[in-house]
């Protein structure tokens, strides 16, 4: 069983402190703790499965390990995989290659650890320079460019709306129109 420790002093907590309805003091530093444990704490770490060796000639082999027995196909590329190469993720089975390529492209979702929010960038570029309005001569086209260039880019995992992009484009277009009118007026005075 893995050990649960006090998050202040690192003392290993025992079963008497687990799942208590009221505060329980750490036996070492006496700090009040509430420890909620789940069955995964008591589960033995699963060992990796190695692929089974092919015994008959008619059996399908793994794409990456031809001498190992294929157990299922990759859900992305369809290649046959042995137990070692099979990676289960969100109920699907992938080969390591597809998973790595997918991770770089942000697909399947759930693998990415970081995302750039181009919609927030475009919105800020269109709104913040209004405080020092001459800056909008540069930032408005920049905001418009980002909004168009990254229109299809994946945004936030949790907030999946294009409203910021649309807002940024509208404001940038208004600013560009304003500058165009201003320059037109100056040149034709």
């Amino acid at each position: 069983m893995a050990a649960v420790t006090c998050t202040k002093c690192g003392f290993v907590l025992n079963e008497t402190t687990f799942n208590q309805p009221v505060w329980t003091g750490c036996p070492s530093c006496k700090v009040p703790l509430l420890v909620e444990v789940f069955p995964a704490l008591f589960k033995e770490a699963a060992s990796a499965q190695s692929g089974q060796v092919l015994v008959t000639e008619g059996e399908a082999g793994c794409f990456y390990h031809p001498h190992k027995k294929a157990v299922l196909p990759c859900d992305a590329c369809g290649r046959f995989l042995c137990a070692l190469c099979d990676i289960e993720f969100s109920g699907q089975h992938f080969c390591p290659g597809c998973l790595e390529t997918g991770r770089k492209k942000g697909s399947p979702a759930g693998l990415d650890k970081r995302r750039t929010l181009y919609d927030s960038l475009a919105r800020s570029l269109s709104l913040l320079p209004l405080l020092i309005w001459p800056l909008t001569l540069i930032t408005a086209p920049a905001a418009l460019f980002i909004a168009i260039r990254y229109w299809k880019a994946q945004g936030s995992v949790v907030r999946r709306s294009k409203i910021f992009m649309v807002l940024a484009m509208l404001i940038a277009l208004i600013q560009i129109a304003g500058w165009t009118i201003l320059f037109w007026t100056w040149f034709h005075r």
Partner: protein
Amino acid sequence: MDDSVLDLVPPLSMARAEKMYLRLPGRVASIAHHHRLWLGPDHLLSVRATGFSEEYKRFYFRDIQAFVIRKTSRRGILTALFALVAMAFALSALLISDPYWRGFWAVLAGFGLLLSAVNWLAGPTCVCHVRTAVQTEQLPTLRRLRTARRVLAPLKQRIEEAQGPLAPERLQPKPPSLAESAASKAAAQAPNAANGARTTTSLP
């Protein structure tokens, strides 16, 4: 590998994503970043937003081993601090004869008292950690016990659905084995017995 095969991998559609995550109570914000917790179909998502990017940490229900909530004294300290500041402003208001400045200091004192009261009424403060087989991570948004309980109630239900119920005998203290009892005796004889049981090791 040809990228076209990735088209077969179902991407997260907008409608699906919106329904996929449920925002959980609690938020920590500063000038540089802010944290939020989201409840996914099979995991807890911790989002740290820094300006124009977001960083994600996923804790799958089947992997969560424990939550450890530790009570902190931040509530008392902050309440006392706000009250002290309010008292200082109130003293300034009493010592100044100018009615304009007296009013100004009185408003500030009232504001300090209000902050102190709000902080006290928000309830006990805590630090919450989630533990999996490979990591123990702090959940920064769970800084009040009330928020932590509100978040952990639905989480506990989801985790139990994923892992099954915990057998009561798991929570029974185990009788110490011979080796453990010998070790505990030796530790009790040693002057720094408490430190001996700690998991953290210090470098020589």
